[in-house]
């Protein structure tokens, strides 16, 4: 089943309890049990469901794919997209690839740290943003770039950052209100 199908099934994933999410993980694992090389797609879907990779989920994955936990943890540790700690609602990644670097990527990173009041790898106290760095997002002609979730922002100047971050704050606020009303 494609990735998006799992996400469509759980639009309110982040509101659900861990137990409910683990039930969803069972569905995923059932589908992937016999697929060769399933571990990485399963981890990607799991992270999309939980927002991160909790130990309970990793243990469950190890058991049902018949792999030692150490192997699963080794794969999780290898790839930079996997995280075992919860992240904020939005992930801000500042590109420090060479083209962005020469075009002022470091200044953009410094300004992002100041604005969000966090260091790289941390999450803001309102749990809205996490900050990370990237090594080339493949948008070097538009440098410097940052990625927020799956959106690429191009030719970013430090002065524009407050406005960019606010867009995501506003969107989140609308989402929360929307969910609140429907509940």
């Amino acid at each position: 089943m494609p990735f998006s199908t799992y996400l469509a099934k759980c639009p309110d994933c982040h509101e659900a309890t861990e137990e409910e999410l683990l039930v969803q993980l069972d569905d995923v694992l059932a589908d992937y049990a016999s697929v060769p090389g399933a571990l990485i797609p399963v981890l990607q879907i799991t992270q999309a469901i939980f927002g991160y990779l909790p130990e309970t989920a990793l243990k469950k994955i190890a058991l049902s794919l018949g792999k030692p936990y150490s192997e699963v943890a080794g794969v999780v540790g290898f790839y930079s997209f996997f995280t075992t700690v919860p992240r904020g609602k939005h992930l801000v990644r500042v590109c420090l690839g060479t083209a962005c670097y020469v075009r002022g990527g470091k200044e953009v990173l410094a300004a992002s740290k100041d604005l969000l009041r966090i260091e790289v790898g941390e999450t803001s106290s309102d749990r809205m943003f996490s900050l990370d760095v990237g090594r080339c997002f493949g948008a070097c002609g538009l440098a410097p770039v940052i990625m927020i979730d799956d959106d690429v922002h191009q030719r970013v100047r430090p002065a524009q950052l407050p406005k960019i971050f606010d867009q995501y704050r506003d969107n989140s606020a609308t989402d929360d209100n929307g969910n609140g009303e429907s509940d």
Partner: protein
Amino acid sequence: MIVETTHGSLTFCSIEPGSGLDSTLERPPANALGRIEASGLRGRGGAGFPTSLKWDLAIKSPGENKYVICNADEGEPGTFKDRVILSDFADLVFEGMTIGAFVIGAKRGIVYLRGEYAYLRSHLETVLRRRRAQNLLGKKIRGRDGFDFDIEIRMGAGAYVCGEETALIESLEGQRGEPRNRPPFPIDTGYLGNPTIVNNVETFAWVVCILAKGAKWFNSIGTKKSTGLKLFSVSGDCSQPGVYEFPMGITVAELLKEVGGEGAKAVQVGGAAGQCVPAAQFERTIAYEDVPTGGSVIVFGPDRDMLRVAENFLEFFADESCGQCTPCREGTPKLIEGVKMLQQGRCSMHYIHELCSLGETMQLASKCGLGQMAPNAFLSIVEHFQDEILGRIGK
């Protein structure tokens, strides 16, 4: 999706989807292979291995379940042409993979798409669905009995080293993306132990153009050893960054003129793993036999501090080293230390020589391309920008 500036008209625009495949299916697979061989096409990911030779080895390798893998793990700093190809010319890529499957006798294809390009996935899935509906993928493609082939998309998870073909295969198999020893090569022992061809996104697209327009058209362009056209991703200190199509064999100076980068003091060709070409050598040609590239061209203007550039490249490799072999894992941090000492004017001539010899050891002793290439930029900056670097000693 990102709006990219593409300069001039690309050959890919003029190719009708389906045209390359139909002309291939009319004749036996060996005919298509012969035409690719005659074109002189070499791998567009940067390594420049002859495409027809790779495919021929996969044909001869025994095995029922052969695979066609498209390497869309475009992670080299400064490279973004594959993203543009996947956004605008996905049909050509899938068609090239289908032709590859027909030639080597594969039933399944996989696109390994880098995690940073997740936003391209739904577009690619849409194109795949349409191609299935048009009978360009699936069972009995174009009514041809026994020619079944389909493509799935698998996502990377943020590891530069997975652009190395054996690491990519490890990752597809659900493991850490640590490169394997070669040989055996993927054409013998690839995905799940089966014969597998791994080609770059752009290579597949050129295969279609060659079969549609003819091998002669392709090999009449470029140099003798590097035929045809190539897409370049140009960034850095130039007035017109973006994607360009140039013939192979173009000189660095000619390229700079086209992109508005005159006055540059150096150009990094081939990304972090490539070479830093100083202004004095701008007459060199971009070709496999001179300065090779996967397409990345980063222009450094007169005010750039080359030591900072070297530091940025080395930090990148230290981050992305898989940690498996010692020269790469331990060597990159040592070189970073050296660059910091140079910046502070605390590095003696003797120690610079030690660092260069460490770099050469890494080139020789690292297990995969990442470690072998990691010191390149440092070594070429030390070689070509001695005045700038040595000037800081003793300050």
